[in-house]
């Protein structure tokens, strides 16, 4: 979705709503953007219905700003809290049946590679902990085993927040929730460790308390997925509504988790390290938004 496609003809320009005019004039397409440029362009077009102080909404904002070429990125999501704001981003977005996101993304990536052989089309899966660790775990793991060149981003709020607070596989041991009054009976599913042994070339575990670091790892993950293989980013996004803390304490909760069970961790293969080192010496070589392909 390049600026050329979304620009209306002059006769219609006045009739369109303000949000659409803003998307064309101040949208994320064209030019290089990063988390540091937030506040000077529109990364999400319209208001989203997330609760006040939502960690997931913050993570989606940062992620939308950190993508290396937004015009050539396709986001694949699944039901859950994350898709409320994902549908409002100025990006191509596709929703799937619950848990199927990595299977759909793998197919789309292969199709886009055939249709646009000259252009890097990034396929990024953005889903919650329920979609990736519980219902979609087999699809996620199999896409990694097959070395599909897609990026998987988990927005981990450690609860099924959208449906009232059931425990998810990623909830912490002993966590009492609205619909888990006896507390979680088993520990978190180690998806990050599974990613290491399942073929991911790059993985990172971050929280929303480090916005610039989140932006950096998402950019690395998307760029590496273009060339080498599957990549994985796990983002801790606390939920004030279900974890029962005031909405202005979200970042404090994320910082506390950083000291405890959500410390920053990054792994990469030897080829990935070499590739990133090469990017550092010649950053303009690959990060430039590619020219749109002719139909």
């Amino acid at each position: 979705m390049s600026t050329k496609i979304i620009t209306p003809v002059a006769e219609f320009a006045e009739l369109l709503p303000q949000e659409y005019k803003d998307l064309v004039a101040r949208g994320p397409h064209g030019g290089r953007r990063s988390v540091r440029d937030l506040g000077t362009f529109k990364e999400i077009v319209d208001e989203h219905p997330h609760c006040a102080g939502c960690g997931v909404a913050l993570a989606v904002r940062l992620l939308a700003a950190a993508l290396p070429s937004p015009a050539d990125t396709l986001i694949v999501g699944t039901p859950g809290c994350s898709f409320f704001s994902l549908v409002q981003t100025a990006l191509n977005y596709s929703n799937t049946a619950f848990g199927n996101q990595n299977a759909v993304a793998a197919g789309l990536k292969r199709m886009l590679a055939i249709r646009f052989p000259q252009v890097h089309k990034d396929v990024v899966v953005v889903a919650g902990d329920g979609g990736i660790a519980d219902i979609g775990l087999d699809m996620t793991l199999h896409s990694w085993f097959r070395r599909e060149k897609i990026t998987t981003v988990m927005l981990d709020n450690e609860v099924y927040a959208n449906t009232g607070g059931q425990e998810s596989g990623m909830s912490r041991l002993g966590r009492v929730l609205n619909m888990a009054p006896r507390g979680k009976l088993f520990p978190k599913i180690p998806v990050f460790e599974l990613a290491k042994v399942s073929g991911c070339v790059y993985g990172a575990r971050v929280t929303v308390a480090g916005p610039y670091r989140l932006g950096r790892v998402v950019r690395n993950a998307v760029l590496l997925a273009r060339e080498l293989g599957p990549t994985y980013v796990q983002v801790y996004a606390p939920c004030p509504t279900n974890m029962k803390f005031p909405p202005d304490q979200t970042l404090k909760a994320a910082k506390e988790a950083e000291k405890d069970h959500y410390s920053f961790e990054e792994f990469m293969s030897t080829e990935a390290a070499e590739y990133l080192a090469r990017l550092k010496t010649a950053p303009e070589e690959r990060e430039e938004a590619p020219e749109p392909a002719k139909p």
Partner: protein
Amino acid sequence: MYVTVRVEVEKCSGCKLCIVSCPDPNVLAFIPEAKHVVVNEHRCKGCGLCATVCPEEALTVSGN
């Protein structure tokens, strides 16, 4: 009365920490010429995350 955040532009240093900690889009915008942020009060949900990260204490949430 709606709960919303207000910015004291004299105190604002333009570090943009509030912008990268706000979960809602297009609430806080940076004015490069004036080097401070402005608030769109109609979009703000009043969570107060920006006020907790502001090192200059330039942001206050009304109703608190």
